């Protein structure tokens, strides 16, 4: 059965990946599943310097979803390289490192450092974070700024470069085109949707950060529509994500146009979710006598 998919020249044994921020640095899940079964492990977002993150409460459960405002807490790129990469390299899977910065220079420096390390197969850029050089506006909500930061990172790395798009925009296909024209090899669609929840007793936002990113099944229809739109807009591979809980959800994304799929919030609920979804996809292909998963991609557009 053909499960393997390709992102630029990076061949994944299957389309199932983990969504950044929901899978730690991989080792947290190693006791629950065999990381070598995954198409790729996408690790928690990293910055040049360690980041402490936001004060608690950092998460709130919502109807079929959750809001998080972790604040990009991470151990920093150097510690990741020395403490986590050696472990990840013992597995037969592709390691994709999600990273971010608060300035274009920081993105570039991070990309350069990560590209110098053996065992990292690809980079995923988080552009849903604030730009301190431009009044803290979000990089990924302006096509011009998206273009600038992606172009700069493109020059700094030869690794496959995936840009993770923010859904908090008017027209995601405009940002998608800007990222691809600037050199993105693939797009992750989507990051979390900005949301809020209020405690009626304290009359205050439930998250200490006030707002947070909504994930989980609640956002799946929005993510699906965005994958569909981005597929129409650009030619590069799309990694579809947003509320994938089951193999059926993952297949929907592939049919909408995704080459790969990333399992996110589901990892929190069932630590084996990613491999369970992979098994479900295999079973579906067998059942439907589909020889190669790549033939399913984007066929929703045929009608």
């Amino acid at each position: 059965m053909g499960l393997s998919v390709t992102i630029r020249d990076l061949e994944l044994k299957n389309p199932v990946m983990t969504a950044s921020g929901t899978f730690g640095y991989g080792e947290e899940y190693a006791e629950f599943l065999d990381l070598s079964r995954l198409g790729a492990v996408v690790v928690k977002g990293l910055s040049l310097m360690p980041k402490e993150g936001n004060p608690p409460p950092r998460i709130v459960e919502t109807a079929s979803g959750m809001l998080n405002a972790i604040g990009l807490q991470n151990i920093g790129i150097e510690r990741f390289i020395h403490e986590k990469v050696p472990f990840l390299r013992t597995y037969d899977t592709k390691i994709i490192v999600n990273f971010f910065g608060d300035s274009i220079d920081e993105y570039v420096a991070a990309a350069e450092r990560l590209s110098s390390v053996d065992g990292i197969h690809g980079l995923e850029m988080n552009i849903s974070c604030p730009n301190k050089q431009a009044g803290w506006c979000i990089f990924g909500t302006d096509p011009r700024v998206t273009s600038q930061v992606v172009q700069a990172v493109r020059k700094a790395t030869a690794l496959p470069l995936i840009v993770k798009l923010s859904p908090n925009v008017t027209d995601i296909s405009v940002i998608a085109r800007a990222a691809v024209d600037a050199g993105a090899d693939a797009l992750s669609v989507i990051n979390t949707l900005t949301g809020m929840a209020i405690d009626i007793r304290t009359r205050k936002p439930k998250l200490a950060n006030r707002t947070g990113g909504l994930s989980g099944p609640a956002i799946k229809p929005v993510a699906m529509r965005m994958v569909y739109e981005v597929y129409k807009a650009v030619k590069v591979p799309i990694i579809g994500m947003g509320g994938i809980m089951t193999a059926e959800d993952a297949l929907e994304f592939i049919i909408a146009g995704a080459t790969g799929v990333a399992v996110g919030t589901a990892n929190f609920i069932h630590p084996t979710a990613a491999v369970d979804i992979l098994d479900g996809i295999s079973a579906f292909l067998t059942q439907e006598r589909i020889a190669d998963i790549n033939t399913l991609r984007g066929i929703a557009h045929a009608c």
Partner: protein
Amino acid sequence: MIEVNKGTDPLLKRAFSLFRKTDEGLQILYRVRGKGTGILRNMKEGTVLDMLGPLGNFYPMPPEDKTPLVIAGGIGIASVFSLVERLADRAIVFYGARTKDDLLMSKEVKDYAKEVIVSTDDGSAGLKGTAADALQTFLSSHSFSPSHFYIYACGPQPLLKSLSQIAKEYRIRAYVSMEEHMACGIGACLGCVVKTYEGYKRVCKEGPVMNAMEIVW
């Protein structure tokens, strides 16, 4: 972490303390507070639930020559019960609740404790006030060396905070079981952190039991 339904609302597993182990298995003691525990209450006997655990650490046992003071605020009894049981007649338990009716399992607690000092917010049973008030009264009426005691506590955060202040004042070693909103329970989501003097620590992984002096209250 226990799954309370097969659907997606509520979405996340719920974190519970292991109340005690019996010949029949593990028991959970919970108070119905929200959506998840509401579903649990209405569940038919024999329903199979997905569970992940046990997770995290436990109260470190005190040396033989110490007297453990165990403080439970409300449903916090669920967390410290097995400690009291394991301490077999050594613990002095300060059990506080809102009212007399909120004092669950008090008979069982008495069976394993050396002494139980009950308090209720409304005075309907035992002393009037919180478990922290009861502890304060106890400590101020005894002459002792602070190194004679170990404090263990689980309960609402304001109670744990006042207990830590008391422990600090009397220089007694204190361990508190912390609570925070939790998604995964295995250290990945970084949702359940509490602020300590060494940075944020995860309740699910480095806790739930933490040294009270480490925490930035």
